């Protein structure tokens, strides 16, 4: 057994996707991204701007809240910003990254949070995609998947809530949404990106103890496996200390119960 949980590993992976100076929006029910933003600002990206669903900029909570729009995300913030002004920023091209959850993710990074089955008479009505249909069309995203299996990572989503690379290649350009797209998919098994030409999903690294075979078996489409697949770097003691201190109630584990 490693001395860290998969939630802790994933949180660190998400944090490392944030580049210094970027403006990042964390959404509702986003426990790991919330902690990842705080981690990134303290470790790798001191000039990142942390905007969140409590409508604040750069809060410094003593302890993260369960609801990721909860009051603790106001502590020590520099300002309030109504979400619609954050969307204005995104429309100006001045918001850089959002983390995205999904019930289904397909080969081209399209995400579904709307329906399993047909839209008008769904087998399962899901909660809907929050900001995705707007933001995924105009900016970069990182998708996180707590349960990497073939029902989540599918060949084709039942419904495109959030735009990935649509049908791949230059499909986004053709649809009139040339900017942005998913950078990475971080799951409980691995990290994936998108092959630059085809825009199909491609393995980058497997988490410590996870084999390439395991990833392939749990993926519902032909994942591109490059010649060189790294092992994801495990969290450092410093990272783990930070995470555990700011999250004593283990909010990060909420998606793994």
């Amino acid at each position, binding site marked *: 057994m490693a001395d860290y949980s998969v939630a802790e590993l994933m949180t660190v992976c998400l944090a490392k996707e944030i580049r210094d100076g970027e403006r990042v929006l964390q959404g*509702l*029910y986003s*426990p790991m991204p919330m902690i990842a933003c705080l981690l990134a600002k303290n470790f790798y990206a001191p000039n990142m701007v942390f905007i969140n*669903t*409590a*409508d*604040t900029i750069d809060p410094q909570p003593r302890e993260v*809240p*369960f*609801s*990721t*729009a*909860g*009051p603790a*995300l*106001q502590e020590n913030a520099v300002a*309030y910003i*109504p*979400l*619609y002004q954050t*969307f204005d920023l*995104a*429309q100006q091209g001045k918001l850089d990254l959002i983390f995205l959850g999904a019930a289904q993710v397909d080969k081209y990074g399209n995400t579904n*949070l*709307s329906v399993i089955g047909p*839209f008008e*008479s*769904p*087998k*399962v*009505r*899901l*909660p*809907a*995609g*929050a*900001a*995705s*249909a*707007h*933001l*995924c*069309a*105009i900016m970069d995203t990182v998708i996180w998947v707590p349960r990497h299996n073939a029902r989540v990572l599918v060949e084709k989503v039942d*419904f*495109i*809530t*959030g*735009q990935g690379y*649509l049908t791949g290649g230059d*499909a*986004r350009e053709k*649809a*009139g*949404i040339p900017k942005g797209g998913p950078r990475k998919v971080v799951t409980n098994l691995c990290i994936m990106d998108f092959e630059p030409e085809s825009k199909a999903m491609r393995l980058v690294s497997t988490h410590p103890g996870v084999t390439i075979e395991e990833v392939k078996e749990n993926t519902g489409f032909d994942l591109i496996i490059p010649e060189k697949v790294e092992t994801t770097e495990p969290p450092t003691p410093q990272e783990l200390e930070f995470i555990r201190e700011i999250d004593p109630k283990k909010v990060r584990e*909420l*998606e793994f119960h």
Partner: protein
Amino acid sequence: MEERLLSLQEAVSRYVHDGDVVAVGGVGRNRSPMALVREIVRQGKKDLHIVGREKGMDFDMLIGAGCVRKVSFALVSLEEFGLAMNFRRKAQAGDIELDEHACNSVITSIRAAAMGLPFLPVKGMFGSDVFRVSKSLTEITCPFTGERLAAVRAIKPDVTIIHAHQADKFGNVRIQGSPFEDALKARAADRTIVTVEEIIEHEEIRANPHLTTIPYIYVTAVVHVPQGAWPASCDGYYESDREHVQEYASSTKTPEGFQEYLEKYVYSGRS
């Protein structure tokens, strides 16, 4: 200025009508106007068209109790407590009309109403099936640049319901934490009902006009309801009651369980 203090019962019976478009304040389970939601359920309002961005127990309860005809939304979820089961059941059964949006398109529909306009443009949306299936969104071309944009149809609330921190008896309201779109929803609506944790003196308002987030000109009724967001949080006053939300989530797994919940916490209760 006229006094606008009413009881919960009076405010809802006077200002929420069957068939109304109702914009609901708060986000997730934060500053949700739960006392107003319970009163609407108690009074058995029907055929409401409820509007909000990322909603939880508030929408799920109104839907489960049969108050709702149509939902304009970008998310309905109980966050870590899982899917909103009343919403899911009624949606799957075709009992409610779904007007699915992205956060920004549903906010923009309210923003248009607040600006007195029949529509507003937004970026993004193309390539999503949300755009493809929507009756509230269409394509428009900028008359100056030729850029293709999505147009969002305005949604004008008949009434907006909000829980806030403080107000005077004339309806000058203070939200002291996360703003969400509450002030925008108040400006968009024909009528606005605000429950507050505290009633403060009018002089206090005039001494600090920069703290007034919703001036009285946008407010129809103020109701003094301490704990009026419970079991949602009210920033600076109380955290959300996770145990209760868990009980709600468990109860809603069956329609019968939800009926028991309503008997226990809504029909019997006074707020």
